[in-house]
């Protein structure tokens, strides 16, 4: 697959085969091992780095890992366990998701920095209860190739058995994702306020300059 960064592709509705990732506290070192951090996300084989050491042996042969198996290999929605993306702030952990076309991760909780990194790259992190995530993962294990459909506008998703789940998302994050907005563009509109603040702040806290 071509490595590409959808970046600011708006997120409205999305449906895909979903992949159960049964790893609690799946840290960003598992999502992309540290030794790949100097690689460029424009490298053609960047998609292979996702879960690299969980997927490949030292000789490059494949391990028995869910994301290596059809039809999961085509899955672009992950259902994970608690504390997905904890650890390092490496945004590469989102770049390897987008390099594989992954647009959403559903989990009971997320590492805070990784969560923000997802939002900035058009990947929707969805928080559902541990019970609901466990149910979804079980259904996906039992029915390989089953799909999940997400509607960000109505903040709902439909599981493999057509059960609907509502989810919360921060209003600002939702606005950015729905419209594919980039933060620098948004912030530029506040230029006058930033300049005013900076002047007043320098007077208030001259020591901090």
């Amino acid at each position, binding site marked *: 697959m071509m490595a590409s960064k959808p970046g600011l592709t708006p997120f409205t509705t999305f449906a895909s085969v979903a992949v159960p990732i049964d790893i609690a506290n799946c840290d960003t070192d598992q999502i992309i091992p540290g030794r790949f951090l100097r690689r460029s996300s424009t490298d053609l084989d960047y998609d292979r780095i996702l879960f690299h050491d969980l997927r490949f042996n030292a000789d490059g042969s494949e391990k028995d890992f869910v994301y290596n198996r059809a039809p999961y290999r085509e899955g672009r929605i992950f259902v994970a366990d608690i504390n997905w993306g904890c650890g390092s*702030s490496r945004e590469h952990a989102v770049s390897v998701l987008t390099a594989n076309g992954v647009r959403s991760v559903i989990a009971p909780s997320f590492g805070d920095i990784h969560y923000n990194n997802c939002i900035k790259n058009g990947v929707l992190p969805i928080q559902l209860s541990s019970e609901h995530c466990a149910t979804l993962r079980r259904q996906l294990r039992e029915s390989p190739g089953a799909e999940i459909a997400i509607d960000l506008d109505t903040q709902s998703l439909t599981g493999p058995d057509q059960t609907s789940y509502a989810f919360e998302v921060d209003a600002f994050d939702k606005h950015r994702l729905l419209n594919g907005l980039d933060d620098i563009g948004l912030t530029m509109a506040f230029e006058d306020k930033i300049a005013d603040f900076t002047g007043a702040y320098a007077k208030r806290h001259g020591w901090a300059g």
Partner: protein
Amino acid sequence: MGKTLFQKIWDEHVIHEREDGNALLYIDRHLTHDLHHRLFKVLQSKGLTVREPGKLFGVPDHSVPTTAKTVEDIPEGEMRETVAGLQQAADDFGFHHFSMADERHGIVHVVGPEQGITLPGLTLVCGDSHTSTHGALGCIAFGIGSTEVEHVLVTQTLWQRTPKTMRITLTGQLGFGVSGKDVILAVIKKIGAAGGTGYAIEYAGSAIDGMSMEGRMTVCNMTIEAGARFGIIAPDDKTIAYCADRPFAPQGEKWDEAKAYWRGLTSDADARFDAEITLDGGAIAPMVTWGNSPQWVLPVTDRVPDPSSETDPQVRADMEAALDYMDLKPGMALSDIKVDTVFIGACTNSRIEDMRAAAAVAKGRTAKARTLVVPGSGLVKKQAEAEGLDKIFIEAGMEWREPGCSMCIALNGDMLAPGERAASTSNRNFRGRQGPGSRTHLLSPAMAAAAAVTGRLTDVRTLIEED
């Protein structure tokens, strides 16, 4: 209702607040390291500039070989390009840069406080999760991703949701042989690796008051391992004494102004926290991790836990997988675990106090495992050498290296072989963190030195005597 320390600093930096609670914050200090060098090329390609280069500080640390003294010493290749790339960016954009040849060079989270770049009351960011370290000085410091780094470069601001607040009070005083590392490992054991997610954690109480600045930095450093991006400790006399006369700290009248302001940076008596946790600091023992999450940690006097006694099937399966990866048997004494390598260093534990604690144990003994001692900065190295600590390590058969992140993230050639087991003062025991197939036990510098001289995990209190 009163305000927390965190809210006071936060409010002082809000440029604009949206109705949904997201705020545009002004950023006082931005630290950067070699792994972000590509971003500056992106800026150039977009025709963007760095808004306040005087507030940006670059230090190459992740890709720095600990056998090299200058960039020219690094063999041609990825590491050298990365380190040279940051230097080039500093030249192009005019920000502060501490090159490898500069004695002020080191790990970004050691250099910031050491140079007085980090100060109470500030907002400070860096594209590295262990930026939480700096909160020990009483500032809002947090790790960000590279898109956010770019945003700060261009605007000197950042959009942030207001975090919830948690106060962790550590009562009593730490016992003999117990340090900041043991405190934070005990905190993570108590609240879990996701216990602090969504929170800013303020540490308070007599055990924190009694702790050195170095110890406080260790506590705040691993706050991210409890899930929280922010750790913060109210500035006190120790903090102010620590900051005084540092090169980038305010001087003269500005110093007096700063000091007066910092004195007010405490949580008000009637401030409300979203969560309150209390731990008996006096009951904390030297800790060591046994699994692949920092929450899987026990006092060194304990035994490897038995998954069969765990009732939650998911947790049981995770424990079994961790024991399998770590090649440990349920019920074995932690002190029976033999180690192949010992690493003393990383932004968690590479400051002068850490070097002293390790040297006190190493003195007159011989290492039974390969041991790397990597000071956190050139200035820590110089101070340690002035105190003769380098000789103690070298006489014990340990390697005394140049500063850098080294074996914490294993991006500089310092790494473990597959299956190798380390006692490490770093912050993460994740699978493969110190090299593919590596096995990591996290512990304090004194405990690491104890493991080095005995060849196994050892209660340091059995090797040293109380003063």
